[in-house]
């Protein structure tokens, strides 16, 4: 399957990175390891064997779920990723829901009322969302809603109120993209021959929009949405840093500052896995929506 090939490519990249700068043990093992541990790891990695065999060992280990131990925290990487991944997932799921719940209706509204005041306002909102850096948005949100109005907590993950601001900071970009994609897909569908025909036949406008137009227009937005979710999960470094949200992004920052390579490796591989999974899910959704694609 193509997904597996992609993952293989990523493992190849990560493997290469660890070998490029010399002995991989110097980044995989903590500074205070003993000489015996050094030798032991050498045997585990198969460093006495040719490179392709080392790669094979590496991949086999990965498949078995052996991600190594964090050099900084001295705990298994997998456990750490799971724990922090949950927090990132919470943020991503919420932001993603916002993308759908807010982005889709606004996009539809904008397409249907093209040229009007609603269209303009929504388009401005969307264009702006793609024009401002998320960390700036985040800091401004904190300043206004936490410090200024004292409605919401300024940082960290606590109860549901702490979810609001980081979600907005991440979500604005996603919502904006979704609005614009839906709008353009729908406009294209609205222009199509099929719709003109339906109109000429006198079918109700509302039926046209929700039954025909949206069905045809859904393809791109679905792709966009799934990719957005994947990137929200893994690309939230900046927002997590600003809001001190204990997720994978912040974990990566700490790992980088402390040269904790096993964690970094774990995050990259996890990100790739999520991306591949989502691509797969997207393909399945396509097939369900559009029978024409099944034939291909």
């Amino acid at each position, binding site marked *: 399957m193509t997904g597996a090939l992609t993952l293989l490519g990523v493992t190849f990249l990560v493997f290469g990175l660890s070998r490029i700068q010399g002995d991989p043990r110097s980044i995989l093992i903590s*500074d*205070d390891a*003993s000489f015996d541990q050094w030798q032991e790891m050498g045997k585990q990695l198969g460093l006495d064997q040719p490179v392709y065999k080392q790669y094979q060992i590496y991949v086999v280990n990965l498949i078995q779920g052996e991600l190594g131990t964090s050099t*900084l*925290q*001295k*705990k298994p990487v997998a456990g750490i990723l799971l724990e922090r991944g949950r927090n990132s997932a919470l943020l991503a799921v919420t932001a993603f829901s916002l993308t759908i719940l807010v982005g889709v209706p606004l996009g539809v509204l904008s397409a249907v009322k093209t040229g009007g005041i609603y269209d303009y306002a929504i388009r401005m909102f969307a264009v702006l969302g793609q024009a401002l850096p998320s960390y700036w948005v985040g*800091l401004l949100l*904190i*300043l206004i809603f*936490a*410090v200024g109005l*004292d409605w919401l*907590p*300024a*940082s*960290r993950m606590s109860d549901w109120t702490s979810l609001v601001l980081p979600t907005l900071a991440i979500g604005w970009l996603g919502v904006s993209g979704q609005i614009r994609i839906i709008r353009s897909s729908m406009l294209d569908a609205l222009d199509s021959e099929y719709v003109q025909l339906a109109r000429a036949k006198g079918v109700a406008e509302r039926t046209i929009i929700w039954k025909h137009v949206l069905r045809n227009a859904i393809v791109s937005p679905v792709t966009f949405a799934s990719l957005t979710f994947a990137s929200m999960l893994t690309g939230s470094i900046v927002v997590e*840093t*600003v*809001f*001190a949200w*204990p997720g994978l992004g*912040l*974990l990566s*920052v*700490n790992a980088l*500052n*402390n*040269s904790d390579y096993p964690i970094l490796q774990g995050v990259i591989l996890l990100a790739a896995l999520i991306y591949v999974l989502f691509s797969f899910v997207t393909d399945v959704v396509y097939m369900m929506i559009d029978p024409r694609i099944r034939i291909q």
Partner: protein
Amino acid sequence: MAVVFIVGCSGNIEHSAESFTPPRIATSAPTAIATSAAVVGDVAAPEPPHATFDRTFSLAQSDLTFPAMVPSQLPVGPGGYIHRWGVYETAMKWSVDEPELEPRLITDWKMDSDGLGWILKLKSGVQFHGGWGEMTAADFVWSFEDEIRETSVHSGIGLARSTGAIIEAIDTYTVSIRLNQPSSFFFEAFLSNGSGAATKIFSKARVGTLGVDDAFLDISGGTGPYVFEKWNPGDEVVLRAFDGYHGMPPYVTTVHILEIKEPATQLAALKTGQIDASLVPAPLAADIASEPHLGIQSFGIPGSQRLYPQGQFCMDRTLDGTPVQPYPRPGYAPEKPWVGDCDSAVSLESARKVRVAMSMAIDRQSIVDNILDGFGRPSYLPEVVPPLLDRVWQDRWFIPYDPDAAKILLEQAGYPGGIDALMRITTGSHPLEVEIGQAVAQFLGALGGDVTTEVLTYSGNRPSVVAREQSDLWFRSSGGGTAEPPEISQLRRNPENAFNPGMEIKEPLAIISEMDSITSSEELDEVRERLYDSFSHNMWIIPVVLADQILGMNTDKIESWRMSSGSGYLGDFENIRLK
């Protein structure tokens, strides 16, 4: 003799919680000054805490990397947390009110008649957290020995090895320490809580039972007033008052320490009350002070910001005659204006002139006034911090801001058009490091040459520094100063030890090594004067400014917080009183 010794040793740690400089606040906010004075006021003897109430206090930190809970693997930085936070303890600690060491885990100590060791009497009835039993001499000995063993990362190894320190248990509550040569630094470095080398007492039985790997992660095992309830790396630490503490139980029962990396967010959290205290960057001190429920105060020892002109590697043999390998060092660059040719006295004198010129080109007062908003002062001796600085200061060490004289010096040295340089600014120590570094680069560029800057992380820069490969300028910041005598930090910069900021110079090291055999404070000061004269004349390290540490806190909640000095980390939570 004991008293004289303490004074001699403690000379550089004169302080009390009241001896901070009242902050100069740009906007008129008299209440802010009054508030901060009230925070650190005269407090009567602490009243016994009420065990039934749960009093919490929250603090933000920008980095909560998990340290190690085993002495040999405890790096200096995070190690500073765990004894400042009152979880692990040292033999003695600096008193809050007087510039004196007071006993903590020992009841008495006596110096041997030949001056080469001490006998320590341990306190009895000190219980370890987590039910690991009572502290005895065995734990003391074990903690020390683990610190200095072969693969340890402890920062005191060099000193322990060079003095041949041996520690032994005489009986259950008595310990003997012997050195093979006198050292005026040893006692305070290892037995007080002021330096990175401080020996924290761990339970021997705990490591024995759990094994090193599990003990590394185990958060019980200290003796202090607080015990770790949880430590989520990179997220949060919770401290809980320890019921069986051998001293006065702390007033605040729960301390939350939250990691917030982004300084702007940290301050927002302070303003909204999510945290009760936080360090504040100088330019924002006035803004924080103007909030009705917040106050600010300077605390601890200012951090020194300085410039290392790298590439000065003329030391071909160590002090005891061992040849330096490899020599010349990879970073030795005689063509750089501030380095010079080791074999030519003329060249070295030109290089000296260049460094002095660079130093004179920096308008230190302007940096203090404009970037630090007055929270700091110009620095004229590298890494010499108050109170030692104020005690030994001589006016001849003053460096005037005189770019014209600097240009003349450069001409004499053979660089009439100014000097070209690359300045690396490393990050991670101080929120204003990049601003100050860039300001310094601008001042140097005003001499006529092309001075470019590079900003990178400290850990990214470190490997090539340790490898003695760099020969450019390195701008280095520190957050809070340590009370450790500066000579110790310079002692580490010799070919034996790993770290080196880019220079190996015999002259100051020779003077510093004279300090080892001195026991009287007058002699010590005389040697110091010579040392600082040589630094002032040669400018091997170019000092820039001392930046105050500023603490912002919720004065509606906090009555007082008496902090002893020592390292720059916020701590002494047991001294917090709430309103």
